[in-house]
Each structure stands twice: as C-alpha cells, then as structure tokens.
C-alpha cells in the first residue's frame, strides 16, 4: 500500500509548481492554469486524508467535490475577466495592467 506521506509530498510539489507559475508567468491565462494546478494539489490532499484517516465519513471527498465546483466557477469568471481586459487593453500581460497603480 502507498504510504500517506507520498501523496502529501506529491501534492506539496504540485502546489509549489502552481505557486511558481502564479508568481512568475506573465500571461493571465497561464496564471489561471497555475491556480488550477494548486487547486488540484489541494484536492489530492483532501482525498488522501479521506482515504487514510476517515474512510467511513468521506468528508474529504465531499469537500473535494465543492473545491472542484468552485474551481469551475473560478475558471469561468477568471476567463471572462481576462477577455474583458483584453478587449480594453489589447494585451493580457499582467505586469502591464496597472490602471489603479499611479
């Protein structure tokens, strides 16, 4: 059987790759993709804990379903925002979007 800590280390690595993507990428769509990576890492953790510590209650799996749903809503609203920014500024480079920063 796979030890619990392997899943946790996999999720930690995936989360940190996502953090790096959010901080370092310039394209707003790439940043949204990195956020999805981070949410997936969290879901792996939740399902692993549900499997190894509370196999009867399944609270982790229920929570993972809600995380998935929020991720879908976030992707839809985020992409709509990106499209709106693109229509106004003709680019989506996040370090050049600074209308509120004087």
């Amino acid at each position, binding site marked *: 059987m*796979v030890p619990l800590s392997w899943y946790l280390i996999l999720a930690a690595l995936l989360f940190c790759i996502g953090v790096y993507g959010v901080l370092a*990428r310039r394209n707003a769509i790439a940043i949204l993709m990195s956020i999805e990576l981070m949410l*997936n890492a969290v879901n792996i953790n939740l*399902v692993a804990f549900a499997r190894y510590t509370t196999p009867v209650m399944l609270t982790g799996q229920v929570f993972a379903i809600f995380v*998935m749903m929020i*991720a879908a809503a976030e992707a*839809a609203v985020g992409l709509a925002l990106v*499209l709106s920014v693109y229509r106004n500024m003709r680019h989506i480079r996040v370090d050049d979007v600074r209308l509120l920063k004087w």
Partner: protein
Amino acid sequence: MATQQVVFLILAGGILLSALMVVSVRNIVHAALFLALCFAGVSGVYVLLRAEFLAVAQVLIYIGAITVLFLFGIMLTRHITGQNIPQLVAHWKWALAGACAFFFLLLHLILRSEWRVVEEVPRDSTTALGLALVERYVLPFELASVILLAAVVGAVVLAKQEGR
C-alpha cells in the same frame, strides 16, 4: 515494491513533469494541453485512492470543461501566444526561490508529523458519497448550485460586448 507503489510513482512522475511543462513552455496552447495531461494523472491518483466518482468527475469537469474553456480563452485572445514575447516576469528567480522554500517547509512538516492512519479499507465510496451529499451536506450542495448560477451570470455579463 508493490504494484500500487509502482503505479503511483509513474502517475506522480507524469503529473509533475506535465505540471512543470505547464509553467515553463512558451506556447500557451501547449501549456493548456499539458494541463489536460496533468489532470488525467490526478484522475489516476483518485482511482488509486478509491475515489472512483471523483476520478470520473475529474475527467468530465477538468479535462472536458475547464481545459476546453482555457483553449477558447486562448483562441479569443490569440495574438498574445507569439513565441518571441517573454513569458516570465522580471522577478521570476525570486518566485522560484520562494516556491522552493515553501516546498521545503511543507516537506519538513510532512515528514515530522505523526499521521493517525486507519487501516480500514472503505467499500463502495460512490454510494456513501451520494448519500452524504443528499443527507448530511444537502445545504452546502444546494448553495453550490446558487454559486454556479451566479458565476455563469457573472461570466456572461463580464464577457459581453458593451454597448449592444
């Protein structure tokens, strides 16, 4: 080494490699396709964890819906996908250092903690999950549909052309 561990290592390698490609390739369309590959690997991990419903939902929602949504977003903002535009911000080395430091903090905490693992093997998690969603967690489940409706309406309003 048991079969499950070998399968886990293969899946983990695939997930991490494709995630690294997502944050590093220049072509954003390729990044979206690697993202789909990464989601498929995560779905395999759910099967290993005996969460069959979540594995199917992962394929349907993430690979089927979210990746396609990203591809449409890329298509509608297309001439930012050029190869010679720099894809990283100026301070990307600091971002890399921060992410590595955070990982080592997490690794330290994971290896130091005592996890109280139950040896019990769950059976038929799909039935239990369905019952939990309509009995114990019925209120969050209904609220979730309200949030999804609000997100759909908000996305339409934001993405609509103004002045029409």
